[in-house]
């Protein structure tokens, strides 16, 4: 029975808050337009900020009337989610942290609650308190919605860029008839090295390449995992009948490999891509001749 009564109370207070928000929409929007969140996003005209504030207040009122004060997925928020996301994104672009944005959303509360307590000055004390609590909960939910929107936008960006990185960073280059090379750039993780391995082996088949060069000049660090991936690629290329050459091992990386105790003894290694190409040409019986001098030179 008591539970039922509380539920009824909450519902009526939510209704009350919804009515209040509709009634005072204009005043709240005007006050919010001067708050940091709206002021910094809508720098061009104050009318625009007021307009945006009105839309948000209207959405909050719809949520309150529907009695779903603490529901992130309430239908009312759907209409302003886009706008809140844009606002949060534009704040984030100017360097504001998530915590800062959350604070700015929280700063919207005093303006609304002052108006509310003024409105309900003549009402019973109990109802006024109930309504204040509901309004606080409602604005807390708004804060969550803003943060959620901002974070999901960030996540989308990260996912898209990760895909782009996978596509862009692994071109297979034909250096000579029967010689292909992959210049690796950036840190290698499992997903990327899998893509590298597959595209290199596909190129070995399509180009009928007898030599495949893995150039790791652009790889900042080599740990045991990366070394293992390299060994796997080399072994797979060998199984297909191609010889794999690892080039571009910088002195620091060579030192790391030795310190880690990784045995690259079965892998042909060269200091630079040019040396690796020279080795591949030499093994195919191709000599590069300097025209000014009479004798052929191996490099």
């Amino acid at each position: 029975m008591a539970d039922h009564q509380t539920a009824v109370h909450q519902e009526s207070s939510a209704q009350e808050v919804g009515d209040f928000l509709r009634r005072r929409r204009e005043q709240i929007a005007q006050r919010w337009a001067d708050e940091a969140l709206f002021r910094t996003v809508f720098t061009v005209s104050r009318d625009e900020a007021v307009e945006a504030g009105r839309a948000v207040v209207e959405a909050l009122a719809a949520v309150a009337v529907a009695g779903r004060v603490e529901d992130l997925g309430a239908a009312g928020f759907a209409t302003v989610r886009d706008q809140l996301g844009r606002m949060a994104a534009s704040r984030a672009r100017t360097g504001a942290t998530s915590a800062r944005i959350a604070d700015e959303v929280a700063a919207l509360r005093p303006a609304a609650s002052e108006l509310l307590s003024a409105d309900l000055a003549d009402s019973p004390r109990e109802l006024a308190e109930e309504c204040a609590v509901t309004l606080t909960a409602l604005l807390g939910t708004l804060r969550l919605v803003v943060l959620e929107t901002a974070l999901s936008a960030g996540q989308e960006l990260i996912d898209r860029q990760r895909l782009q990185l996978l596509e862009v960073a692994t071109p297979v280059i034909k250096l000579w008839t029967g010689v292909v090379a992959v210049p690796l750039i950036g840190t290698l993780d499992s997903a990327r090295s899998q893509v590298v391995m597959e595209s290199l082996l596909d190129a070995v088949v399509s180009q009928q390449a007898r030599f495949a060069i893995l150039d790791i000049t652009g790889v900042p660090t080599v740990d045991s995992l990366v070394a293992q991936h390299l060994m796997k690629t080399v072994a797979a290329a060998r199984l297909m009948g191609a010889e794999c050459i690892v080039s571009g091992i910088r002195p620091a990386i060579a030192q790391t490999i030795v310190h880690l105790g990784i045995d690259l003894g079965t892998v042909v290694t060269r200091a630079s891509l040019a040396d690796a190409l020279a080795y591949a040409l030499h093994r195919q019986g191709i000599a590069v001749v300097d025209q000014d001098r009479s004798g052929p030179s191996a490099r």
Partner: protein
Amino acid sequence: MSAPIAGSSGTQVPVLKLGTVLLVTLQGDLYDEAAEQLQRNIGEAIAASSVTGVVIDISGVEIVDSFLGRVFAEVAAHAKLLAAQTVVAGMRPAVAITLVELGLTLPGLRTALNAEEAMRLLSPASTPLHHSPARQESP
């Protein structure tokens, strides 16, 4: 791989003798039973005729398991005892990746890009990889 139907010994792999080389072309899936049969056939063929090389063309094989990987290694070891060299030719990328992930890098096995290259590797007059006397580069 186990045969889907019991006793389906229909997939006989032909072993062709071309000069001094045995050419074995695998097509499609090779089941355990057929693989063992093939292993025996190759051994007998090497012993019966004086071949110096065996080319196993697996460009038509899309799926391998650890058993087939071991069969390749065993055929090579077997042939070596009978003084013949084995070259596996035309392995697909997916197959190579699978074998490496299984840990079967087959270190004793010679490989070639295709059957033609494998034949060139095995022909006695071939100079598959140029070794100039003037400049000997160690790999």
